[in-house]
């Protein structure tokens, strides 16, 4: 009888501990996995802005993917004027991205941002 009661107490404690710690455990694991996987991707992203041209049609930014993973460019800033874009960029590929600008004058501070938050910038005079 005493053993049965002890067994019940142990199992109850296990259930209490499991149920109460499960959300925290899931959150912890989720953060760890999300953080490490995201950082794993972000750290392999690498873009270089190879050329910038600004004329009456807008700003044209040549971006090359020199990293280890494909990326998606989602934002281009030229002297603080942002343009939302959605430009997938495969490995070792180069694209020209047009950004809408008005009244900007050199030097041009150009920032390119990816969907994972990676960004690179260049000052083009």
């Amino acid at each position, binding site marked *: 009888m005493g053993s049965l009661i*002890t067994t019940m107490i142990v199992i109850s404690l296990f259930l209490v501990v499991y149920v109460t710690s499960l959300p925290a455990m899931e959150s912890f694991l989720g953060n*760890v996995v999300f953080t*490490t*996987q995201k950082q794993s991707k972000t750290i392999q992203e690498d873009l*270089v802005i*190879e050329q910038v*041209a600004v004329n009456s049609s807008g700003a*044209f930014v*040549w971006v*090359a993917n020199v990293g280890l993973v494909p990326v998606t460019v989602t934002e281009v800033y030229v002297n603080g004027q942002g343009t939302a874009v959605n430009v997938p960029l495969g490995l070792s590929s180069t694209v020209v991205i047009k950004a809408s600008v008005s009244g900007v004058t050199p030097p041009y501070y150009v920032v390119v941002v990816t969907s994972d938050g990676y960004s690179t910038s260049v000052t083009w005079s």
Partner: protein
Amino acid sequence: MSGVRRRARPAQSTVVGAMFFIVLVFFSLGILYYVENNYVLYGEATQRAWQLQQQRNDQRFTVGEAYVLPAKGGYKTLFFVRNEGGTPIDIVNAYLCSVNGGKVSRYSTNLYLNPGQSEWVNLTDYNSSFPSVLNGDYNVSLWTSLGVGASTIVVATALGAFGSSPEGNVYPVAGSLSVSASKTAVGVPSWPPWWFRVLKVWWLQPGNFSLAEVNVSFTVVNNNPYPVMVYPNSSLLLYWIPTPSQLNQLAVDASSYGSAFYSGVIGAALPLNETLVVNAGSVETVTIPNYTIMLYSLTWYETAWGLLLSVTNSANSASKTFGKYPADIYVPIYPSTATNYTFASKLLLSYALLGKTYDMYLNIGYSTVEISPPSQSPQ
């Protein structure tokens, strides 16, 4: 029953507690493995990114010199690239950008250079079209597949294929090959030296009616750190530069008689006996005597009057052979009024630098020929 001692059976709570402990241990190990696995993947990614950055840091190359040369259908842009880093590089992108930033052309290249290796990049080899006319300063930048770049400035003041730039159409940037030509006339039988002079000729019956004989000399200044070889197939070229109205007349004639004879260049090989080697930092002057500029009048299909021009050299017997209609330049003339015709002279040199051969055009000067009506008979 005596002497046999049986082991006591563990209590049920002990078994359950042990199982609970074991489950907790495996559960913790599973979490640890899962987390560790993610950190391993993160570490591998970091390692790859670090290695890539190391390779990038080892890449270093320079664009030593650059030229913009006129070429058929456009322009040929040459760059001398040297890999000065400690790792191989592959140049994948080249940009030609006006310095004011308004125009950019990107060209895909595929140039692989080992450490210490140098190479000429010929952009016309990699893409089909160049701007037909380059003017002003251009920034040329080259990029490797890892995102390492280098650039230089090319001053391109060239005009079109029949350019009128008296400085010539070669625009060295850094250490370079420059050529200047002098115009020395000797033994002119019937003309004054034709360089930069306004000539006056009279139209006669079909046939040879005027000639001039000159010496052509040019000086090669080699500012490269390497020897340059000038090949004997250098040529003197004569371009007819028609006025707009003459161009219009050409179009009219072309519709009537075809356009086969409306070519724009005449020329003949300079008789360099052997390859001229100009050492690094040296200056060499070459003189080729007895150049003859001949003009032929022509009755073309007995309906259109024309003028044929030819360049020959008395030392080059092959260039003295003409057929009935030498494949030179046909210039339509109209005997009703005296008309000026302008010709540009260019020296075409083929030279080799670092094992590759290039063509260089040098504008020498311009001549204007006045063609008078046949009623004004020659003296």
